[in-house]
């Protein structure tokens, strides 16, 4: 199954819930989790919000785990760095390689950072997986967040889907011609894909500009308020 975050955001039990509520809840929980810096609270938040996502919003567990995988991978790398390369305290473990050691304060940092971030993921996930981006942007606009930020968000959101599609198509085309058959060809294919995506994005941005201009774009994206019914 393909993981499509946007599709999930549009099709879950909490899609129609007031977006302001979700936005504020997320922000407050994030602040509290970061500020408290308490391991038990981190675990508590992680469990509670995961339950909200899985049980109340009824998002299937596979999608939720996929949502967590990529940021957790980054988190693990970050925390490993914190553990081995930071701190000034007492040495508690020597690896014996290039004098790399674990110190008591660096271990403390690593563990606390890991838990705090783990506590924050489901909070963000709660917003990202249950609320379509259009609604979030609308809220931000009504909360007087600068237009430029919202416009950039909107256009980026649009560009992401175009890119993902392009990458998907190109990758398949390369794969068809055995572009990822060996390590060496994988490197070459990935390189070609990256540079082509860059050129195509320039092309696409020009066409998008033409399309916007054709409909009387004035340099500012107007905000539409749908009819109340």
């Amino acid at each position, binding site marked *: 199954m393909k993981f499509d975050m*946007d599709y999930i955001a549009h099709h879950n039990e909490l899609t129609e819930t007031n977006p302001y509520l979700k936005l504020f809840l997320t922000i407050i929980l994030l602040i509290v989790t970061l500020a408290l810096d308490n391991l038990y609270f981190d675990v508590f938040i992680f469990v509670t919000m995961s339950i909200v996502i899985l049980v109340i919003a009824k998002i299937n567990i596979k999608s939720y785990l996929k949502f967590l995988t990529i940021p957790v991978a980054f988190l693990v790398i970050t925390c490993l760095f914190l553990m081995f390369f930071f701190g000034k305290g007492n040495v508690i473990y020597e690896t014996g390689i290039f004098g790399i050691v674990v110190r008591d304060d660096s271990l403390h940092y690593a563990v606390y950072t890991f838990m705090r971030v783990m506590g924050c993921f489901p909070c963000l996930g709660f917003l990202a997986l249950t609320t379509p981006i259009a609604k979030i942007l609308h809220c931000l606009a009504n909360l007087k967040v600068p237009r430029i930020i919202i416009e950039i968000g909107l256009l980026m959101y649009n560009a992401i889907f175009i890119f993902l599609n392009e990458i998907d198509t190109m990758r398949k085309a390369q794969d068809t011609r055995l572009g990822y058959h060996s390590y060496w060809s994988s490197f070459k294919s990935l390189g070609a894909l990256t540079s082509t995506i860059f050129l195509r994005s320039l092309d696409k941005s020009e066409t998008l500009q033409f399309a916007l201009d054709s*409909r009387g774009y004035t340099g500012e994206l107007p905000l*539409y308020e749908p009819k109340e019914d």
Partner: protein
Amino acid sequence: MLEVKNLKYSYNSEYQALKGVSLKVNKGEMIALLGKNGAGKSTLFLHLNGIYKPDEGQVFIDGEELKYDKKSLLKFRQKVGIVFQNPDDQIFAPTVEEDVAFGPLNLGLSMEEVQDRVEEALARVGMTGFEKKAPHHLSGGQKKRVAIAGILAMKPEIMVLDEPTAGLDPQGVVNLSALLDELNEEGITILISTHEVDLVPNYADRVFVLVDGKLIADGTPKDIFAQPDILEKANLKVPIVTDLFQQLEEEGFDMEGDYPLTISEAKDKFLKLLNKN
């Protein structure tokens, strides 16, 4: 109504895409622009609302010249609506209704007026009920309809479509042709670039043929498809029914110089031939 005079445009010093194109579109017409890939069709279209500024030549609408200042551009972009070939290039908003509302909002209309226009435009293209959907979750044909609704909501006088049937399934092509026919009957002038020669005689009142940046022919489908040299220059062929009757003539049937272009013309002709023999 829409007039283009001696339009020239170069992308760079070696490549001149348009080499002096002049054409005139009358109110209420439905016109097909034919030409091979790279003939300059898209380039020409982007001149009609001032996206490209020509090196030489002018564009007029209702006798008024396009001046390339802000006011004149906005006016032209309201009157000349361009539907891009790839709907993904055109649709950018996170929901269908926001995308359709983009044009009318840029015209500075009131929110109620915009809401009415969005509703009307979506109903017109048969996409009512999709207002809150994300465009990237729609099928190709549906996206095309949304793209057309986005232009309709601006109430243009002339709608310009760049290969609107490209990438649609056969039923999608039929539905789209029917929609364009209806819009034309309601008074919108329509200019379409296309490769689908089989469909052209069904809807087009007039045909332009563009070859290497020059307009080499302008006439009714009957005129154009009766000139093999023009078709050859433009990498075109006659509609498949016409081809059939031309081949029948080689077998000894007398066509009296009149070859049917559409299925219904072909049916009549066929019955006539059958009755005669």
